[in-house]
């Protein structure tokens, strides 16, 4: 067993400053994950050269891969750092912030664009009110299984980080938001505004921007069937397109 672990971390003081690499060597402790290593650095912020430095900044909360906060690029692959186990990673471990979002500091990035996309596709149910209106509609178990899978999306950003079409300079909605529009278009009441969601998907930055590279589905930690969602929304969009033509 090794007695130390080395981490190479790409650091950046703010959105506009230059990035630099810094190496840390910390004692190896069994059952470590990337976050526990970052915590060890916090408790003793000294780099491999023995210099005292500021602790590395990153984002995390749940530590069990359900909140989506701690996504970063680990050994070149985008993943949650809380579920990245040191024993399963090649050493030295390299950590970088995601490249498709503005860097806030070190490994923390600003994913506001993803939450904005949820607004654009109106990812919500419109309710008549929050008072007692009795039970919702009955649903089959097979419907529930599809919807449940889609609703596990934690806005983590892995899919868009892996997507060749999503970039800092364009306005592509990305696979996660497209998949959410599918979820709400299949909900018994949220589908009442299905057409409005399709209109959004037909605009610039919408579904036509997807080049079908399928990187997203492989990157998704929750195994959300993103390409299936994209295909389904593609069908709905072209259905709407033809309806528009015939109704015109």
């Amino acid at each position: 067993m090794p007695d130390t672990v080395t981490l190479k971390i790409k650091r950046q003081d703010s959105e506009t400053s230059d990035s630099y690499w810094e190496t840390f060597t910390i004692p190896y402790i069994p059952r470590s994950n990337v976050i526990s290593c970052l915590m060890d650095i916090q408790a003793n912020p000294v780099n491999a050269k023995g210099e005292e430095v500021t602790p590395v900044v990153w984002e995390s909360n749940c530590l069990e891969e359900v909140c989506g906060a701690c996504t970063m690029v680990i050994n070149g692959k985008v993943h949650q750092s809380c579920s990245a186990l040191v024993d399963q990673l090649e050493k030295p471990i390299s950590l970088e912030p995601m490249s498709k979002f503005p860097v806030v500091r070190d490994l923390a990035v600003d994913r506001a664009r993803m939450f904005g996309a949820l607004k654009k596709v109106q990812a919500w149910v419109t309710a008549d009110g929050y008072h007692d209106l009795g039970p919702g509609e009955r649903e089959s178990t097979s419907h529930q299984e599809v919807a449940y899978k889609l609703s596990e999306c934690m806005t983590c950003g892995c899919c868009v980080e892996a997507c060749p079409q999503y970039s800092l300079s364009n306005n592509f909605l990305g696979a996660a938001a497209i998949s959410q529009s599918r979820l709400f278009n299949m909900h018994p009441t949220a589908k009442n505004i299905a057409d409005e969601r399709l209109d959004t998907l037909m605009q610039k930055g919408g579904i036509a921007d997807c080049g079908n590279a399928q990187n997203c589905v492989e990157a998704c930690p929750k195994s959300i069937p993103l390409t299936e969602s994209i295909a389904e929304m593609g069908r709905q969009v072209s259905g709407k397109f033809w309806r528009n033509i015939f109704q015109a």
Partner: protein
Amino acid sequence: MNKRRVIVIGGGLAGLAATMKMAELGMSILLVSFLPVKRSHSVCAQGGINGAVNIKGEGDSPEIHFYDTVKGGDFLAHQPLCKDMCLHAPYIINLMDRLGVTFNRTPEGNLDFRRFGGTLYHRTAFAGATTGQQLLYALDEQVRHFEVQGLVEKMEWHEYLGAVLNDDGRCVGAIIHNLRSGEIKAEKGDAVILATGGPGLVYGRTTNSMVCTGTAVTSAYLQGAKYGNGEFIQIHPSAIPGRDKLRLMSESARGEGGRVWVPRKAGDSRKPREIPEKERFYFLEERYPLFGNLVPRDVGAREIYDICVNDKLGVHGEMKVYLDLTHHTREFLDHRLGGILEIYEKFTGVDPHEEPMEIFPAVHYSMGGIWTDYTRTEDGLIDHQSPNNQMTSITGLYAAGEADYQYHGGNRLGANSLLSCIYTGLMMSPGVINYVNNVPESVEDVAENVFADATRQWQEKFSEIKGMSGKENPYALHREMAEEMISNVLIVRDNSKLKSTLDKIDEFESRWKNIKCVDTTDWSNPVPSFINQLWNMIQLSKIITKGALLRDEFRGSHYKPEFDLSQPSDFKPETYLEFEKQKEAGIVKENAFEPEHLAYMKRFSVNNKKWLKTTIATYKEGRPEISYEEVDTSLIAPRPRKYD
């Protein structure tokens, strides 16, 4: 549109439910959260949410749910609140279903329900193994819709530091710290709601998320608000060991038939599957034939402690037992428990479909929290229009969710917290709005210097923190303090250890003053915040430890062996009701009871008289001063608990 505004701190289930409901009623809301609300701790909840919908035709009802809740909490919860909550539970589940939560279904398409600890009914609605995540997302989506409509303004990446109080001590706003720019400024609000979740991080590694420091409510306590029942900390029987976090293995694993066992032979080194059935000790099933593996959490955690520490039967001689699901088919397990089994496999590398899981008890939940008020109706329910509901002892400062103290008594039942969070958020909203519409002076008319002074105070405090150049690393100090709490203020409590821990905490407090602020930059620097949070965690650990030291009894999660009343094994709780009735009538027919039972009932009665009370901590001269308050037990007569 209403020109007044409410500030909600925290966007977990409680904060989002309140935001959504108040926005529906037309109130403008400023929603402040440490991190994007969609990433709040509530997403961790796996098992489900309780509501007596009686889908399975078992004769379940809100009344029985109410009874189970009160009994589960060892009678320390305020009964009108529990009753009102349980009565509203079926409606809340229906509402969440309408809002798009992908709850599991029965073959006929109804909501499906599973069993959870502390009840004999199928009462827990669930969405796979990520119920909290699904509930939170549904509320997050509603709030996002209001955001688009302009009723809700969000400030994510902002931290609440303290309340702004006017000259009468009324809360008129909050001091908010921008976690990116570092700016500290006052936000005006006619009322402020703390929906900031629990304080798990006082114990370091727990099942909680990273932001669960309890720092917001502790700040309210330091400003004079009362803190209730601090010593009641729930230890969950089943967690998975980890270096950064003790991940939970949900009670639903047992709800779906998971069996807890240890090898009968101490130190048995065989692999679990090689140990034949008759050499396995299913200790919960043997000791609690009625509730079996689904005893309440306090009982479960104590039994595991007993098996491992006293009987020395822990797996590999460690504080661990097996939780076994291998008798189920893969298909069944994936459908009903997929998410949590994945977590186990992901973090341990062992497949729970094939091998029994190794689990152990971990800090999980705080029944205690900031003290809050309510107004009951004649018939023992809650007057939803009352501005007192969920108000702390600081006027205009409210609290909801895990941050408050009054729904779970001495021990929370599984799947009751998601319920209490959503319930409090919804229930309190009309009352908060009534309060806001009737405040003597709108915040717009409050003198500017009130806000300016408070802001300056906090700015000065943070520049002092940034200037700290001592020797202690704040993160390392936190680890040490947490170790102390884990070692001495956990499942089994002992007065001499509690006393020495209190002294230790004082030492941590002096060492805090010798901290080095290891990052003094201005942009997106989490260190000064953490140092401030650590101070609050030190204060909170005093509340917990002192409350535990002074409470000389055994109730719910608070276990002191020397004060165990030793319930005779053949005792029936109803006997106590008869005893109380006779006492009330003035004549106890002593020979109608078995002498051992009679003696026990007398002990129980004396103990309840002294201790069936809420612990109140108030901040006085740097320490918590402890006093006790009556609990409303008018609806269900307190009696001994029994689960076998």
